[in-house]
């Protein structure tokens, strides 16, 4: 292992291609942390944003005007403002207004860390889009299928859970896929509130080592792999959900 690291150090000296996150143990550790942070952030946000989408779409069909208004307001506010500014706003403005908790180093830290705010903010941002995506999927389930369920005596919640949602899911999978890919890409914004994800770590490394092109290419490859895994997973899911005669 050490030989490999040394090889990369020599590689730098002989070719000028500098990959300190391989040979330098400090940079390596923080890059691994950064990668894991990105993965963790992505996975949590993916999950939450889908849950928000499902619940929001359900609430959108609610009989209470005010429920629908609040959901609409949420969607419009979140999808019409830049997620970067949302992050800043959440972290600095809302964050410091929250109650504080005692930290292990004896300070009074805000209840939520920058990571938590990134999770909240990005989930709600992607969730706003997901609500609309699920909503359009639900709309695309023909009224007649819902009526068939109605005429068999299903309740509203039963229809949503047993008929509408499973069918809508199949219709919206491509756009959901698209939005989730976007979400993974958007996690880079957490960089701005100092969540040590991959871009943040890379930027630190390239300002220490002045090796921007190398880091940039590494970042592109890393995101390709991550997005690739997501797309692969979504495609498998799509295949698993496939039913004959549906969406050939």
């Amino acid at each position, binding site marked *: 292992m050490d030989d490999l690291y040394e090889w990369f150090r020599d590689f730098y000296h002989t070719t000028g291609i500098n990959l300190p996150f391989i040979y330098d143990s400090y940079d390596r550790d923080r890059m691994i942390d950064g990668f894991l942070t990105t993965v963790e952030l992505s996975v949590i946000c993916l999950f939450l944003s889908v849950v928000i989408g499902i619940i929001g779409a359900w609430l959108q069909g609610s009989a209470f005007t005010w429920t629908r208004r609040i959901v609409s307001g949420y969607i*419009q506010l979140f999808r*019409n*403002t830049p997620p970067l500014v949302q992050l800043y706003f959440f972290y*600095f*403005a809302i964050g410091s207004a929250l109650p504080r908790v005692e930290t292990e180093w004896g300070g009074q830290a805000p209840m939520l860390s920058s990571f938590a705010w990134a999770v909240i903010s990005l989930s709600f941002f992607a969730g706003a889009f997901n609500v609309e995506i699920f909503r*359009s999927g639900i709309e695309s*389930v023909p009224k007649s299928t819902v009526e068939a369920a109605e005429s068999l005596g299903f309740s509203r919640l039963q229809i949503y859970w047993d008929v509408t949602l499973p069918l809508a899911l199949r219709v919206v999978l491509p756009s959901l896929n698209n939005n989730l890919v976007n979400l993974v890409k958007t996690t880079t914004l957490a960089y701005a509130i100092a969540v040590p994800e991959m871009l943040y770590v890379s930027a630190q490394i390239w300002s220490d080592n002045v090796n921007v092109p190398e880091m*940039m290419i590494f970042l592109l490859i890393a995101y390709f792999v991550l997005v690739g895994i997501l797309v692969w997973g979504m495609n498998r899911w799509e295949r698993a959900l496939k039913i004959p005669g549906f969406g050939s």
Partner: protein
Amino acid sequence: MTQPPLSQPPSGKKTDMAVMLPFKQKSYERFRIELKPWHGVLLAMVCFFTTTYGYATTGPEVDSILTVMLRWIPLLLKGFLFNILISVLSMAVGTAVGTMLGLAQISLIGPVRHSSWFVTQFFRNAPWLVLLFFAMYLLPFEFNIGGITIPFPDWVKAIIGLSLPVMANVSEVVRGAVLSLPSGQWEAAESLAYTRRQTLWLIILPQCVKRMLPPWMNLYSILTMATVLAFIVGVPEVMTLTGRALAAEGERTDLLAPFYSFVLFLFFIYCYPIARWTVYLESKFAVKN
């Protein structure tokens, strides 16, 4: 001759599965009735003022938050104009190149199709921020072609960096719209002896424009929101200026909330009408077909 009204217009494609009916996006009817634009403005104002007064703990010797805000708003507005300028130009460049790329994606020539597909996927899957970093660090600040120096100032770099993902997304929009037309349209045109080129330009694309408009506008709105990322490149856009304004005011922490909610507010009043217009067009076209 009596014309019995058709209870159901014939849909473009025959399927046994009713579920496969074309996507109809009339879902937004509700928004239109219940959420008026001023609701959004109201919401943003509430955000703005609550935070402004929520932090009104300033002593007598410092300027009040409102005074500070008023001092900087003209500059911030100028910065926001820059955001809009960048968004418009990136959209124009991205659309022009992206349309070509999208058409290349449905080309009958294999290599053209495959390479344009690859380019599209490449720029679609890269994070915007990384592409901007790319444009900023890896593009020269000026280009030398045969003695003529073409300068690449920051804002040009920002436009290039932003038009790359726009291009890739437009490419997909074009391809998707063309493929979403029922194949019957191609066949009808073919059986009337249209050439492929004629079919594309006379029959397919005119119908696609309508289908492309909503996603295209959606993309524009996303792009506009992404222009704040140009802070990376150091363009004096609104986020950059906000950061600098805060520094110039001596890092007063009570200023963060009002400043950021002001920026949120600016984007909201610009993007929300676009979003609503998009929804309107979407539902309008959905009914027509």
